[in-house]
């Protein structure tokens, strides 16, 4: 999985190797996180996805060319409760056997001023694709770029939690998805 990711990144780096001076595109998998928050009977819960891959390229000076693709391995979910971890990969929730991953593909990035940006894109979960908008901040620190953002989805829009679980009074419909991505820029040869 990791070596595959490396090959993908390497090849994409080779293809677009002569871009601007600071194009952030190497995702530091061990420093990046995709977490989520939800409420269960009014109780705030936190979860995370241990495995995901991301291919991104971001140059604040060339937003039109910015791209991001994030694939999340749904079986790697940690909902914060072991019992729930077994439950959510099942059919009523993610149906991870049929739909092992969730994916985000960006369609555009615009600047909101300062270090704030907004990514729009298509989020696909459980065979359903919907448009999402994710505001995020970007901070460059030498060759390291930090992306932090949060956006909210409604789980029922993707049929996550069907049948008895469709009751949003128990598990809330709103799921906050938080991402913290650390990307490094390779110093480009001119």
């Amino acid at each position, binding site marked *: 999985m990791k070596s595959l990711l490396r090959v993908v990144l390497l090849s994409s780096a080779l293809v677009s190797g002569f871009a601007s001076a600071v194009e952030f595109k190497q995702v530091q998998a061990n420093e990046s996180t995709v977490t989520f928050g939800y409420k269960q009977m009014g109780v*705030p819960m936190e979860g995370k996805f241990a495995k995901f891959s991301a291919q991104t390229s971001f140059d604040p000076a060339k937003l039109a060319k910015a791209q991001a693709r994030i694939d999340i391995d749904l079986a790697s979910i940690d909902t914060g409760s072991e019992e729930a971890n077994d439950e959510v990969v099942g059919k009523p929730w993610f149906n991870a056997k049929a739909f092992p991953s969730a994916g985000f593909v960006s369609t555009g990035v615009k600047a909101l001023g300062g270090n704030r940006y907004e990514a729009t894109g298509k989020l696909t979960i459980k065979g359903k694709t919907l448009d999402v908008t994710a505001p995020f901040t970007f901070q460059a620190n030498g060759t390291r770029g930090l992306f932090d953002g949060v956006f909210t989805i409604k789980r029922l829009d993707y049929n996550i939690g069907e049948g008895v679980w469709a*009751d949003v009074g128990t598990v809330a419909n709103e799921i906050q998805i938080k991402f913290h991505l650390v990307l490094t820029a390779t110093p480009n040869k001119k």
Partner: protein
Amino acid sequence: MNTPIERYNNTAMALHWLVALLIFAAFPLGVYMHDLPLSPTKLQYYSYHKWIGITILLLVIARVVWRFTHTPPPLPASTPRWEVVVSHITHLALYGLLLAIPFSGWLMSSAKGFQTVWFGVLPLPDLVEKNKELGQLLATVHQGLNVFLFLLVGMHIAAVIKHKFIDHDQILERMLPKGMSK
């Protein structure tokens, strides 16, 4: 024919019977919900159990305050010395358990990574961090304390029955409103 019974006051009675009622709700609920497969109902039962438990904790704190600030009605003069001693120990242990059990449940909930939010509205602070081993330990403690509670409540009720139907004294009447006893 008898001298009038000295009863607990209304506050003490209300607290006693309310806590009794809540224990009879929370205890079987706790036993039942434990083995349920995960479902919205299970999550609801767990929340109800926690809400009741925290309510018991608060009411028992009020009872302890009441007990420290009031003198309970005396036991009948005929009560044997050993019964006085045993009843004091039992009541002390009941108070202790009724504080320790909800508290251990609250801590267990935190250790297992679920904050307790009273009635889904008031979040209680997590006094311990999420920790799997600690969560299991506290679950054992919570269950173990409940076994003691079960035994002591059984003893408490058995004593009431004994006093009412064997000794024919007026221990029970002290905890009953006036109209409810002859």
